[in-house]
């Protein structure tokens, strides 16, 4: 059944809203990119899929919807902060709720740092539309011109008389008005909430245990499951012995389960019990034999030697080319030709993967830490052959995501287990499952060749060899990785006259997927390390060298800011300063890292200066927090973390061998946000890629040692 035939009356009745609330939402016509605001009270709203982003009831209670996942990046604050600005309500008096997974909210995937940049124009329009309607309603009630009225703090005020209505008193009238088109939006200079470092609305919930994460969700009669999965993705269950497991008090059932990882089946044995602990004990008592035949069992050494082999012998699939770098490289008397290596990484959100599913004959409901509720809805709909409106996907708070929780495997597995049990089930992944089973960020090698002529770049040629995430999703194998240049600053293609990028295809059976800032997280290290090597070969200051090739005003301002805040010009020669700049998800970030050597000979990060240009922005404090966190995540990935493989198995298990930076590792960081009105860029990821090259460039500046392989040991440079 589809909701497209729902009548207005039915919708309002179903929602209990007839004449009692103002509900505004956005309609995303399939045919156009422009969304339209609609009023749930409009006749026009009949026949379209209804959502509501803003709801104001008769008591004046305002409910704003966060349509994206809250995984730490601040959507729970920033989405309402935008709506509240144009709506003119006090953020402390609104109720914020997460949307369910539904195409009605447009694209909900919380990835690609897209929450604000993908939604803000619509959200502004939505908030402003509601405000205009409420003002009009007040004007009608007072029989005065709307121009004499204004909105503030959830009230409409009649300027000449000082009379006021609170929004609740206006909803009945407003809900009957026609939805205005092309409402005026505020200027940046008029913002009261946007661009202010407001306190996050979710903080109080996260300091007293009240926030409900996936693992905290409970249903009556809910059972708990853990799954012993084949540690090699493509392996199968040959047999299992559940006798001992079934004797563990609390264990209810043990059975084989097959979940989909992309189009590959991962087999495991589920242990379902009355508590998490009982399920874990049952799993310990389980004996499973695996069938791991028919696919390659790789080791880390093989992966990198093969990547290197490919890079040395193959041109790969061309992705982008300007001029003729090959010819210049061929004829150069002197050239740089180096290889950079980056490791596989696990996501390791603090909240291990988990999901609650309740499969019933008539519907499936899912609750969990889910980055892509609309994708999960689509996937479960298809897999279980259930009408789409009978698949309800609810987002809890996410205890971190970093890309892993945008995946569909764990909700799929939870639904399979619930179906088998005929009861609501929470599937809990242990930390070891979370670390070892991937999908991982792919480890990638890069070959960079370059020629410098008279202090200038004559040619650059990049080749990458690493797993292509598109291939897991059926992408064409004769096409270069779509993210081959991710992280590279676009203006370089204009100023560097001979430059090429190619993808040398490289496959393994190891499952891979997005990890915070995706390909930029590894590309950035290669690109910006090489830019530093080129600057050094050219005998130029590395910051000036970049400035020379990035003439746009916006980038010049960014570079000037980096220079100013870090004291770059007055820095000590070979004092341990490194610079890097990357661009991804429409934001550019420049970082300067200062390092020193301790008496014990260890490298210490003394300071990081990061400058973010994300264009139009909402909450500068959230941006700073995201950049701080991105830098620490990059520090871990550059210096202590690596997933290695032996015989096809990930060798790491938990935080004792996949170590996390701790408070003692945190360098002082200053983050600066550029002020401009350009289109909004991403915030959650772009702060990450520049850190590792800025760090290794700083180490080169201090020690003369060029680090081309991550991770490296800061205690042994």
């Amino acid at each position, binding site marked *: 059944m589809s909701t497209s035939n729902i009548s207005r009356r039915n919708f309002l009745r179903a929602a209990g809203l007839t004449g009692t609330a103002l509900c505004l939402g956005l309609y995303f016509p399939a045919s156009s990119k422009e969304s339209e605001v609609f009023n749930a009270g409009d006749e026009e709203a009949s026949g379209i899929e209804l959502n509501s982003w803003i709801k104001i009831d008769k008591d004046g209670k305002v409910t704003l919807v966060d349509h994206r996942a809250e995984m*730490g*990046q*601040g959507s729970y604050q920033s989405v309402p902060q935008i709506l509240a600005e144009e709506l003119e309500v006090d953020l402390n008096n609104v109720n914020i709720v997460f949307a369910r997974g539904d195409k009605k909210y447009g694209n909900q995937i919380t990835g690609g740092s897209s929450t604000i940049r993908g939604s803000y124009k619509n959200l502004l329009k939505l908030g402003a539309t509601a405000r205009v309607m409420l003002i009009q309603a007040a004007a009608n009630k007072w029989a005065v011109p709307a121009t004499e009225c204004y909105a503030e703090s959830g009230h409409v005020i009649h300027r000449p008389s000082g009379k006021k209505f609170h929004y609740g008193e206006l909803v009945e009238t407003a809900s009957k008005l026609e939805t205005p088109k092309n409402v005026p939006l505020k200027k940046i200079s008029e913002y009261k909430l946007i661009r202010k*470092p407001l*306190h*996050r609305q*979710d*903080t*109080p*919930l*996260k*300091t*007293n*245990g*009240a*926030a*409900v*994460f996936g*693992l*905290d969700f*409970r249903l009556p009669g809910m059972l*708990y499951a853990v799954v012993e999965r084949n540690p090699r993705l493509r392996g199968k269950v040959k047999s299992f012995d559940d006798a001992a497991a079934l004797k563990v*008090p609390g264990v209810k059932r043990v059975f084989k389960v097959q979940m989909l990882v992309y189009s590959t089946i991962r087999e495991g044995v589920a242990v379902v019990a009355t*508590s*998490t*602990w009982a399920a874990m004990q049952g799993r310990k008592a389980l004996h499973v034999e695996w069938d791991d035949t028919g696919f390659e069992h790789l080791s880390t050494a093989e992966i990198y030697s093969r990547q290197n082999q490919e890079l040395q012998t193959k041109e790969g699939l061309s992705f982008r080319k300007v001029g003729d770098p090959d010819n210049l490289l061929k004829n150069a008397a002197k050239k740089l030709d180096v290889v950079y290596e980056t490791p596989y990484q696990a996501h*390791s*959100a*603090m*909240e*291990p993967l988990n999901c609650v599913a309740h499969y019933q004959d008539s519907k499936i409901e899912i609750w969990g830490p889910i980055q892509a509720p609309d994708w999960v809805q689509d996937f479960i709909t298809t897999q279980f052959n259930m009408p789409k409106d009978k698949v309800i996907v609810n987002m809890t*708070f*996410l*205890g*971190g*995501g*970093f890309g892993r929780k945008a995946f569909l495997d764990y909700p799929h597995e939870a639904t399979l287990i619930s179906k088998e049990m005929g009861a609501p089930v929470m599937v809990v992944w*242990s*930390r070891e499952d979370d670390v070892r089973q991937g999908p991982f960020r792919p480890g990638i090698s890069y070959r960079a060749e370059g020629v410098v002529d008279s202090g200038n770049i004559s040619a650059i040629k990049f080749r990458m060899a690493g797993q292509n995430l598109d291939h897991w999703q059926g992408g064409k194998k004769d096409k270069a990785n779509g993210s081959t240049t991710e992280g590279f600053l676009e203006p370089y293609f204009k100023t560097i006259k001979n430059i090429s990028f190619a993808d040398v295809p490289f496959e393994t059976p190891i499952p891979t997927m997005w990890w915070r800032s995706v390909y930029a997280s590894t590309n950035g290290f290669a690109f910006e390390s090489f830019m530093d090597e080129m600057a050094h070969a050219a005998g130029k200051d590395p910051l000036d060298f970049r400035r020379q090739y990035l003439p746009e005003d916006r980038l010049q301002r960014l570079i000037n800011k980096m220079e100013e805040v870090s004291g770059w010009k007055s820095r000590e020669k070979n004092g341990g300063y490194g610079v890097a700049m990357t661009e991804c998800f429409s934001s550019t970030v420049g970082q300067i890292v200062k390092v020193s050597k301790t008496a014990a000979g260890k490298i210490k990060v003394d300071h990081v200066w990061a400058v973010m240009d994300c264009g139009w922005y909402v909450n500068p*404090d*959230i941006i700073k*927090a*995201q950049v*701080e*966190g*991105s830098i*620490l*995540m990059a520090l871990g990935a550059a210096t202590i973390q690596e997933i290695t493989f032996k015989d096809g198995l990930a060798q790491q298990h*938990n*935080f*004792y061998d996949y170590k*996390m*930076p*701790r*408070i*003692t*590792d*945190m360098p*002082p*960081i200053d983050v600066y946000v550029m002020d401009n009105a350009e289109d909004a860029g991403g915030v959650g990821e772009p702060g990450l890629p520049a850190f590792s090259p800025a760090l290794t460039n700083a180490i080169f500046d201090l020690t003369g040692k060029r680090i081309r392989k991550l991770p490296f040991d800061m205690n042994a440079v």
Partner: protein
Amino acid sequence: MISLNVNQKAYQVDADPNMPLLWVIRDIIGLTGTKYGCGVAQCGACVVHLNGEAVRSCVTKVSRAEGQQVTTIEGLSANNDHPAQVAWNEENVPQCGYCHSGQIMSAAVLLRDNPNPTDEDIDNAMAGNICRCGTYLRIRKAIHTAAELQRKEVKS
């Protein structure tokens, strides 16, 4: 049956005495503020106070807590107003928030034992709590703020 006192409330729980206190608190008593992060005392997400000490509940058998005083994040203060909680809000510390029950419970022990902690004291107290979002700078700042709030409280 095991007798527990959690947040000043008595519970009789029917649990294997070897079950970690973490799972008793979460799955049996139903207080979910205390988090599972690693299960092996590496990350500190599960810190609760056992007679005032910041124990890792994921490796603490429930039998150890029998008849003892257990405090979880839900019981740290009545109104989210322990100086650490106030400071965490003031300094916008949490991102995803998952680790912060444990972070705050660890910080509370530090603040009790040392009303004026230095950065080094903070390192010594907090290195057992992992934050994957990287909020450490703010944790440090918030502990200093909390110490200040606490000193003001004592004075007034």
